[in-house]
């Protein structure tokens, strides 16, 4: 009988502690979604079908497939799979990249009519300009999401690869022209 009392009392005490901890040490937001978001490339391109990287991260945390990130590609899938402790899955059909290398938007200034539509479309405020004034893309801030390309009424926005400079060169010497010499056989 005393054992029964003791167990009940213990259960009540621990229950109270746990209940208090659940309120007191409650974690704001979804920590898993935050961790997934940290992996995502933050281009905010919405190619996954979500309006940004954060909503997509939340969707993944809620069980959505994590193979829809086009800018992230395979690497992102592997990283998320490692985080979630599951097997990596193949990249979704819709997320296949056409070409490698980071592209940034470029406004052909001659054709720009200053409609500000691209400014409204840009998720990271990387386009400068005002009504009836020529716009320009701050290449440094551009994530290459291509969201500004479609709204342009004059089709004056094109995606251009980021120029390679000695400072961001990948040091792949083999890509430079290397002469292959046949060795004379003795």
């Amino acid at each position, binding site marked *: 009988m005393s054992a029964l009392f003791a167990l009940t009392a213990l259960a009540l005490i621990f229950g109270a502690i746990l209940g208090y901890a659940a309120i007191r040490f409650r974690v704001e937001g979804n920590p898993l979604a935050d961790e997934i978001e940290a992996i*995502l*490339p*933050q281009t*905010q391109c919405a190619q996954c079908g979500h309006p940004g990287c954060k909503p997509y991260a939340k969707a993944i945390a809620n069980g959505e497939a994590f193979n829809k990130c086009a800018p992230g590609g395979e690497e992102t899938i592997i990283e998320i799979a490692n985080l979630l402790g599951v097997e990596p899955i193949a990249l979704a059909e819709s997320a296949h990249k056409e070409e490698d290398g980071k592209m940034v938007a470029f406004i052909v200034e001659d054709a720009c009519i200053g409609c500000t539509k691209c400014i409204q479309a840009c998720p*990271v405020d*990387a386009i400068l300009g005002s009504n009836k004034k020529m716009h320009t893309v701050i290449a440094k801030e551009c*994530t290459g999401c291509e969201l500004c390309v479609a709204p342009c009424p004059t089709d004056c926005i094109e995606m251009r690869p980021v120029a*390679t400079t*000695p400072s961001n*060169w990948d040091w792949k010497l083999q890509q430079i022209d290397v002469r292959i010499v046949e060795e004379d056989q003795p």
Partner: protein
Amino acid sequence: MNNWLENAKVGILHRFRGGVHPQTHKSNIDTSQVYQLTCSDECVVALQQHIGSPAKVIVAIGDTVLKGQALSQSLLFQSPPVHSPCSGVITAIEKRPSTHASGLDVMSVVITNDHQYNSVQAQPALSILDENVETIIQRIHDCGISGMGGAGFPTAIKINQSKDIDLLLINGAECEPYITADSSLMQNYANDIVSGVQIIKHCSTASLALIAIEDDKPKAIAAIRSALDAVKDPNIELRVVPTKYPSGGEKQLIQIVSGIEISAGMPPIAQGILVQNVGTAYSVFQAVVHGKPLIERVVTLAGDYVEQARNFWVPIGTSIESLLQQNGCPSPSQTLSRPIVGGAMMGFMLNDCQAPVTKTSNCILYNEAKVIKPAQACIRCGECAQVCPIGLLPQQLHWYSQSKDLEKAKQYQVMDCIECGACAFVCPSEIPLVQEYRETKAAIRLQVQAKLDAERAKMRHENRQQRLEQEKEARKKQHQLAAKRRQEAADSSDGDAVAAALARVKSQQQAKAKTLDNGELVPDNQAAIEARKAKKAERLAAKNTQQTSGDSQADLDPVAGAIARAKAKKQQANIESHVAKDPRPSKSQNPAVAAAIARAKAKKQQGNEEVQEPETSAPSTKQNPAVAAAIARAKAKKQQGNEEVQDPETSAPSTKQNPAVAAAIARAKAKKQQASAEVQETEASAPTTKQNPAIAAAIARAKAKKQQASAEVQETEASAPSTKQNPAVAAAIARAKAKKQQTSSDDQKPQPSKPKPIQNPAVAAAIARAKAKKQEKEAQND
């Protein structure tokens, strides 16, 4: 004083771990003299030859520059400028092949050498121990000096440290095989170098300066020693360090002389140690004492294809191909090989020999091509780990680099690799280890950059979302407020000031208005009309008295007056010279005609945009009928652009029965007719409208309009009946016509300005009306 510094002062040397002893190949290189090399015909000066950011170009294509003239400029010490190595003309500012392993094109200024070598005036010499350190540092920056040992760190930043410097270390170790540039410099310019060291020491407040030289350069050591003896500065000392590669590395040399191992990712400055190359010290001396910018440097030319390996003063910007040519070396297109820039251990093979010599190129090595055996598998012998001066595990890094495991490579501190090449040098499998590490490091750098970019993009996106949210919130709030105000206005019947004002205006209008037969409310302007009538009578009387002296103008009727005016106008146009010669009659005839002439003149003047009106400006333009009339016409023209008929109608009643309007109409019409030479018509129509000048004018105008072959006919006709009661409309149309005429024909010569000052009441009335109309229009627009 720190313990290590005391030890360093005493001369205790330490060892760094690892290191190799490659064959130096220095014995047969002539260091006794530094030979002068001439500038190539085309000099390519890269804008960025240092770590940091390029300075802003201050020259343009086509500019003529002198030797030593600055090509770029920046206030930031991180962007030292570049200077022209020769005099000549700038032919291009474009991307040219870089002196970099990538061979990528970089922004460069291209100067076509005129071989005159006219120098800019050297900047004034500064005292070596100038009290003002800022002046010296600014001079160092302005002369474009950046580290000449290889990395190219801007010297001004390095010296201009807020942190206290304990030890100034002058790097003369020059441990790489073949390179003897610093060695020959020390041998030949030891005094200058020591002076440079003094300057840097003075600027950096270091208590001790050490010049470290490897013991395989006895001549350089002797030269520096004698220079130091001459200076007799006890705080500048010479340290002879044992020859071992890579003792010339910054961190390795610090370790040798002080025993301090600089932690990863930390600059030596953090430890209170400032390291400068001997070449930099020499350049600092040249800049401060001789005011010379950095436009040439010592370059060692050595290798199998070089007949006599020597050191040269090479103007910075000279193409490497030209350098080879001037020494009789075979062109790289003839050999299988290409020159290596920067030494056998750490240098890179040049991609394009058009690339120029830069501030950091210390050696051009032109060896015969050696067939590289394919790399074999790593046998884990561990040799590389033994020689690594940093203490890394090269073989581990090799695995991680091959498997592209960036995380693991980072864990094994690949980023601390100084790429000295010792590991690859000892590797029995001939694995190009350094190349692997470079690729890995580049990949990690890109990854880190991508992470930073992502972080930034996330922040910007979130800020944007927040901003949009705020804007939405603000809009919502505004709408709510507006709705609330409307609600309040509706609720309070008497509280709204606007509503009260509206009601007041309405009641006033109603009081003034009278109802027509068809129930339409029209303003009752009877009082105004009466006043106008009185005014008109008065004016007619005045006219009468004036015209008693006139010959043909006995008739007081305004219609007759209009006809006469029209005639006068015609006369005036046809016999311009006559009128111009004798303007008197027109003045005596009728003041209205005179006013018209004056207006014509004003019109002309206005068209020519002649501001000067010496005679007419005496009476202010407020009272100048000509100018006012012109303004009124311009306004009418503007009105015509909008709704022609409706607008003037609103102001119609006010001008009812105004003889001045009629006169204006008649004048304008006459002008028009004059253009088509049909004055008779007007004259004929005039008598029929004797009773009412306004009606007469309208009819006459309608007729004139009809004759005028234009599309406006219907519109004008339609408006004609309305002008029966609305002379103002007629006036507006007339003015518009007049305006039109003005633009088409400007043959009316300006008349002498004598008639102008005459004050015609009719003209004044027209001005007043036009003004009122304008105000009204503005009010409407508002």
